[in-house]
C-alpha cells in the first residue's frame, strides 16, 4: 500500500486556475474524501493523481515516489468512475479480467482472480452478462471489482455512487467502507455529497474554488469548521447563517442581526460586523402563545412555512423577518404551516465568522472542547428572554446586508 502526497499542486486550464496551491497528505491505508461543490477542482485533483491530467506545477508523490512524469498505467492506481466506465462490448468476466490479461497474466491466473473478486462482490452469477444487462448497483460492483482485482496501491473514486438511487447508495456506501477496511488500500474518494463524506471518510478535505479549505475528521469539520464555507457545506440541513453586528448592550455583549438576538460572552469577540451560524439541529421551534412568557432561550419569533418530516426527526422551515431559517420541530407539539413560533436554543453551539474573510472567530464544538464558545451568559439568557424574542415581534431592524440569514446555508 502507499500514501499520496500533494505538494503545492496547481492546475491551470488556459489562464484559469482550477486547482491552486494544493497541499494534502493522504496516509497509507487512509480513506480520504475530497468534498466540495461542482467545479471546486476535486475531480481535477483526482485526475492529476491518476495521471489523466498533468499538474501545471507542484509535486504528486505516490508511495514515496514523485509521480508527475509517470504514465498512469505505471502509477499502480485504480480508478472507479462516476459513470462506471465499464467496457460495454465486454462481458462482466472480460471487464474484470481485462487489465490482468493485458498485463500478461496467465489465463488460469486471470480466471482465478476473476472468480475470487466476483465471489467477494456477489458477481459470480453475472459473469457472462454484458454491462447493459446489469442494474446500476451491479454495474457499480463490476466497476469496483475491476479496480480491486489489480490490487493497486491506491484507489481513486470519482463520485461512484452518484448515479444510484438513494437506497442503493446507502447500501453501496456501506459495502465500499467494508471493502476499503478489509483491503486496507489507500483510497481517495471524490464527492459533493457531505453525507457520503461524513459517513465514509477517515478524513475529509473540503475544497472550494480550487483551494483546500480544511482537512480533518468528519466530526472536526462539523463541529469546528475553519470558515463560513465549510460550516455551510457540512451538515444537513445546512447551517443557518445570520449577518449582524456584535455590540455591548446593557445586558452584556450581544449579536443582533438577521432577525435574531443572541447574547455572547464578553470574552468571545470584539465589537463589529459578523456572521453567526447555528446548525438546525441545535435550534428548535416552540409554539408561540399570545401574551405568554417566551422561553428563556428564545432568540427570535418566527412563522412556520412548512415542516419536513424526515422520519426520525422533523425540521421546520421558518421565516424570521423575511429570511428563511431551519430548526427542529417536535412532532408532538403539533406545529404546522403558518403557525407562529419561538425560535429557541442554539446559543451554546453557535459559531461566529468574520464578515470580511468568512473565517471562524469563536464557537463550534465548545462543549466538546471544553471551551466556552458562544455560550450565552446565563443571566443574560434568562433576563433577556423576552427581549430576545423581541426583534421579530417588535419589528426591530435586521442586520444590514442582504441574505444575512440563509436557510440553505450557502455562503
Amino acid at each position, binding site marked *: 500500500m502507499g500514501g499520496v502526497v500533494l505538494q503545492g499542486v496547481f492546475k491551470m486550464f488556459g489562464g484559469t486556475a482550477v486547482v491552486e496551491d494544493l497541499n494534502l497528505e493522504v496516509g497509507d491505508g487512509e480513506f480520504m474524501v475530497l468534498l466540495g461543490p461542482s467545479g471546486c477542482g476535486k475531480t481535477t485533483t483526482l485526475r492529476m493523481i491518476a495521471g489523466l491530467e498533468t499538474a501545471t506545477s507542484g509535486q504528486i508523490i505516490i508511495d514515496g515516489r514523485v509521480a508527475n512524469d509517470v504514465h498512469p498505467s505505471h502509477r499502480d*492506481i485504480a480508478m472507479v*468512475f462516476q459513470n462506471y*466506465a465499464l*467496457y460495454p*462490448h465486454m462481458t462482466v468476466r472480460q471487464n474484470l479480467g*481485462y487489465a490482468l490479461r*493485458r498485463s500478461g497474466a496467465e489465463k488460469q491466473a486471470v480466471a482465478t482472480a476473476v472468480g475470487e473478486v466476483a465471489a467477494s462482490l456477489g458477481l459470480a452469477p453475472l459473469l457472462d452478462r454484458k454491462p447493459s444487462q446489469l442494474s446500476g448497483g451491479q454495474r457499480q460492483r463490476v466497476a469496483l471489482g475491476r479496480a480491486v482485482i489489480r490490487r493497486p496501491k491506491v484507489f481513486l473514486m470519482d463520485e461512484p455512487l452518484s448515479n444510484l438511487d438513494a437506497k442503493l447508495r446507502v447500501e453501496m456506501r456501506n459495502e465500499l467502507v467494508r471493502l476499503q477496511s478489509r483491503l486496507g488500500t489507500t483510497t481517495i474518494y471524490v464527492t459533493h455529497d457531505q453525507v457520503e463524506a461524513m459517513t465514509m471518510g477517515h478524513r475529509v478535505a473540503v475544497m472550494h474554488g480550487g483551494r483546500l479549505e480544511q482537512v480533518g475528521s468528519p466530526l472536526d469539520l462539523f463541529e469546528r469548521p475553519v470558515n463560513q464555507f465549510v460550516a455551510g457545506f457540512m451538515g444537513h440541513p445546512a447551517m443557518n447563517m445570520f449577518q449582524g453586528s456584535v455590540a455591548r448592550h446593557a445586558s452584556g455583549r450581544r449579536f443582533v442581526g438577521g432577525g435574531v438576538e443572541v447574547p455572547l460572552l464578553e470574552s468571545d469577540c470584539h465589537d463589529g460586523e459578523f456572521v453567526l451560524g447555528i446548525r438546525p439541529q441545535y435550534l428548535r421551534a416552540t409554539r408561540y402563545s399570545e401574551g405568554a412568557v417566551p422561553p428563556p432561550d428564545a432568540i427570535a419569533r418566527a412563522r412556520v412555512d412548512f415542516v419536513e418530516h424526515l422520519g426520525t426527526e422533523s425540521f421546520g422551515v421558518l421565516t424570521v423577518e423575511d429570511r428563511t431559517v431551519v430548526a427542529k420541530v417536535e412532532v408532538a407539539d403539533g406545529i404546522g404551516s403558518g403557525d407562529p413560533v419561538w425560535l429557541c436554543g442554539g446559543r451554546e453551539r453557535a459559531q461566529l465568522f468574520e464578515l470580511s474573510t468568512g473565517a471562524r472567530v469563536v464557537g463550534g464544538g465548545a462543549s466538546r472542547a471544553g471551551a466556552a464558545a458562544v455560550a450565552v451568559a446565563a443571566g443574560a439568557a434568562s433576563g433577556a428572554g423576552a427581549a430576545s424574542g423581541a426583534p421579530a415581534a417588535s419589528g426591530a431592524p435586521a442586520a444590514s446586508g442582504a441574505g444575512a440569514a440563509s436557510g440553505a446555508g450557502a455562503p
Partner: protein
Amino acid sequence: MSRAAEVSLDHVVRGSKPGRVVTRLAFGWVVVILLAPFVVMALTAVTGNRAIAVLPARWIPKQVAWSNFTSAFTAVPLARYFLNSTIIAGGSTVLNAFAAVPAAFALARLRFRGRRAFLLFIIATQMISPIVLLIAAFKLMVVLHMINTYWALIFMDGSVSLPITIWIMTAYFSGIPQEIQDAATLDGIGNWRILVDHFIPLGIPGIVTALVFSFVIAWNEFLFALTFVTNPTIRPLTTGIYAFVGEAEIQWNYLMAASLLSIVPVLLIFLGIQKRLAAGLVAGAVK
C-alpha cells in the same frame, strides 16, 4: 382537458386540414420527381430493341423484354465489370478503413498542436472538385506506373472519400465516453490497443456508415476510371457500360438494364446496414 382545449391542441400539433392536404401534395410531388428517373430507367430497361426505336417514344412498353438483362451481359463483359468494380470499390474501402480509423481516433481523442486546423484542412479538401486534381493525379499515376491498374482507382477513389470517412468516424469516436479511454489507460493499455480493443468495437456503427459512403463513392466513380484505365479487362462498371453509348447509336435499353443491375449491390448494402447506418449518422446528436 376540455374539449375545446383538445381541439385547439390537435390544431397546433397536426395543423389545419387544408394545410395538411397541401403539405401532402407537396411531399407527393417531391417523391414523384425523385422516383421519376428510376421509373424511366426501369421501363427503358425492359423495352425491346424495336420498341426503343419507335417515335414518338412509348413510355410503357407493350411487351416486357426481360432478355435485355441477359443481353447486356453478352453484349459487353458485364460480369467482368462487376468484378472490377467490386475489387476497386472494395479495395478503396479497405484502404479507407486502414487510413481513416486511426486518423479519426487521433483527431477525436488525442490532443496535439494543430489538431483543429488539420480537421478543417481535411474537410476543406472536400471542397475541391476531383476534376481539378485530374491532370496532377494522372501525372502521379504515370510516375508511379499505375496507369491501367486497379491500384490507380483504388488509391484515387480511396483518397477522394477519405475526408468524409474521417469526419464521420471522428464524430462517432468523439461520442464514445472519455472515461472508457481513461479506464483503459489506467489499465495499462496504449493508444493502439485502446483503438483496437475498444474504439473499433464501440465505433462499428460509425465505421460502417463511413465505409459504406466510401464504397458507394468508389462504385459510382466515373472520371478517374475513364482517365486512368483504358484496358477493358480492368474497367469498372461505370465506364464499362459506357460502351453502350456508341458513335452512331445509343443502346438505351441495354444501358438502362446494366445501370439498373449496377445499382443492385449498393442497394443491398444499404438495406443490409440500414439500422446501423441511421445510428451512425445521428451519432453525437444527443447524449
